[in-house]
């Protein structure tokens, strides 16, 4: 029996009972859509995060106060820092490590910001002039924080785009004096709209010199020192040097130093594992679909007992009968797989149209895996019915009982 004949024979049988075939492959379609869209969302999240970090600049090493035991884990955010990380530390790191182009301290606090009768609470970032280059900030008007000694404060502020809008509407904020907490600050610049970045809306932030920020929050420690490295620097060497210098200054390792790459890497691997887990859960639905196919094939075999008996009578051997029914199951499931792929792709597309911020894309491996899985499902769950058909007693089968 040639492969072509086998195919034609099985296909004719599948098409004979169209409605039942369609219903049985519906399960596979749904399973495939589930796997496809969930992995697409996972992949989309991964790309989103990676892009966000890339926009922060890639060759960054950051130092945060407090020991983070998990190597490569997320750097700690504000608050709860057990030990100080001082402006002096930043200066030392910049001066003593040649690969460091600049060490940029950042302090974060939240204060009431007001201009005349308008007031709101806004995040205040204390930092230095180099932050502009590091974050590739673009100014809508005025200029960013001036170059100066890190420990020298100044009563100047650069406003995020949305914050400027809220305080000044269409009026020109440059040169105006606003109140931040109990301080009076002169606006020297406004940033261009930038949008969300890793959950922080840069447009809402007011940037002031780091020394002012620390005095305002009454803190001795910065939240983070970001090390902007020269291109092609060895990040791990820099991290080792940072540790050496800071341990020398603090007498203990009371800080965490990670490279942006490590953060991206660990986030990626977390998201990758999540995607796999979710895909695994979704593929359970494919197994359920396989049981549906098995059920339909069992019904089909018992309905077509007389036909199986005839096939045996005219000289088909058990292997040929097994192949026919196995191929029928495989045809059903792979048709479901292809249909699911088409519908899933359309759905992913619609998802992208309705929520463009995170572009979701089904990963290539998932497309391949989904097709292989659906085909495999048909074959695995087709074995039992096909085996039954092949083992049927021809005499009983021909009598139809």
């Amino acid at each position, binding site marked *: 029996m*040639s492969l072509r004949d086998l195919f034609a024979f099985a296909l004719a049988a599948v098409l004979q009972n169209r409605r039942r075939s369609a219903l049985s492959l519906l399960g596979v379609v749904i399973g495939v859509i589930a796997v496809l869209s969930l992995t697409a969302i996972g992949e989309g999240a991964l790309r989103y995060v990676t892009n966000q970090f890339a926009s922060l600049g890639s060759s960054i090493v950051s130092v945060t106060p407090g020991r983070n035991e998990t190597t490569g884990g997320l750097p700690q955010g504000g608050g709860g820092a057990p030990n100080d990380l001082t402006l002096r530390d930043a200066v030392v790191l910049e001066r003593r490590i040649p690969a460091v182009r600049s060490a940029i301290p950042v302090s974060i606090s939240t204060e009431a910001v007001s201009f005349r009768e308008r007031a709101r609470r806004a995040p205040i970032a204390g930092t230095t002039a180099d932050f502009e280059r590091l974050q590739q900030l673009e100014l809508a008007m005025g200029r960013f924080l001036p170059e100066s000694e890190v420990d020298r404060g100044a009563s100047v502020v650069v406003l995020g785009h949305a914050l400027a809008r809220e305080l000044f509407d269409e009026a020109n904020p440059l040169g105006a004096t606003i109140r931040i907490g109990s301080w009076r600050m002169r606006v020297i610049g406004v940033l261009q709209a930038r949008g969300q970045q890793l959950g922080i809306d840069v447009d809402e932030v007011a940037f002031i010199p780091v020394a002012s920020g620390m005095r305002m929050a009454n803190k001795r420690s910065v939240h983070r020192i970001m090390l902007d490295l020269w291109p092609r620097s060895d990040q791990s060497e820099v991290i080792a040097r940072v540790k050496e210098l800071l341990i020398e200054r603090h007498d203990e390792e009371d800080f965490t130093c990670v490279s942006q790459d490590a953060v991206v890497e660990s986030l990626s691997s977390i998201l990758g594992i999540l995607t796999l887990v979710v895909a695994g859960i979704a593929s359970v639905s494919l197994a359920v679909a396989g049981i549906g196919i098995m059920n339909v094939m069992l019904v089909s075999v018992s309905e077509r007992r007389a036909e199986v008996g005839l*096939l045996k*009578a*005219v000289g*088909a051997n058990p292997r040929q009968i097994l192949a026919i029914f196995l191929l029928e199951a495989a045809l059903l499931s792979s048709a479901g797989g292809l249909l699911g792929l088409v519908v899933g792709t359309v759905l992913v597309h619609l998802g992208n149209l309705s929520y463009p911020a995170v572009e979701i894309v089904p990963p290539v491996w998932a497309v391949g895996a989904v097709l292989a899985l659906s085909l495999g499902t048909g074959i695995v769950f087709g074995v039992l019915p096909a085996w039954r058909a092949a083992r049927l007693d021809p005499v009983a089968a021909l009598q139809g009982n």
Partner: protein
Amino acid sequence: MIRVEDLWRTYVMGDTELHALRGVSETIGDGEYVAIIGPSGSGKSTLLNVLGCLDSPDRGRYSLAGEDVAGLDEDALAETRLRRIGFIFQSFHLVPRLSALQNVEMPMIFAGIPPAERRARAKASLDAVGLSDRESHRPNELSGGQKQRVAIARATVMDPGVLLCDEPTGNLDSRSGAQVLDLLAELHEGGRTVIVVTHDPSVARRADRVVVMRDGGILKRVPGRDVVDLGSLFEPGAAPGEDAPSVEEAREA
């Protein structure tokens, strides 16, 4: 030549054992036209199934064209059915989704015969039963007689030496039945061994030889032309062919 010796076939149904064949022995020569007649439950269909390699005897010997068939495995049995035996059933057993031509082609698919040759042979076979104008019809578009003729075309397309027919006219009106019997006679004249299982004396009458079965054994053997009616066949002493006692009777005596 078909030779069976001391065939036993027992079906177990719950507690009861049904002896479908009780030590049947028979020899059918090449090119013979034999009818097996008997009431239902006489074991005639079981004998036909064993002869057709669809069923295996519990005991006994069966040689087909000099080959011991009883010892063959399933694949070899399938191969034997494919090459040497053609089946014709009471209920036709055509595959409903396939056209007449495709139904006739089917055995050749399993034999791995290439499509072009298959098509040509199937057409010739359909032509031989007078249905060349019904090639593309589905079984549900054919009359009973036409269906059985398609089945005959299918049974003969692999050119087997033996045709086994189980009540071939059982579902047909008398005119279609006669057509089918004429075809069988034609095939017999072409040199094939034709074995027909029936309970209809008018069908049995067309055979060279009639084997009368009862209770899983062979009661007697009579020439086909001597068959008058069922009753006379089973009346001991009254029926012609008394001179040809069955093996069993000889043994019991």
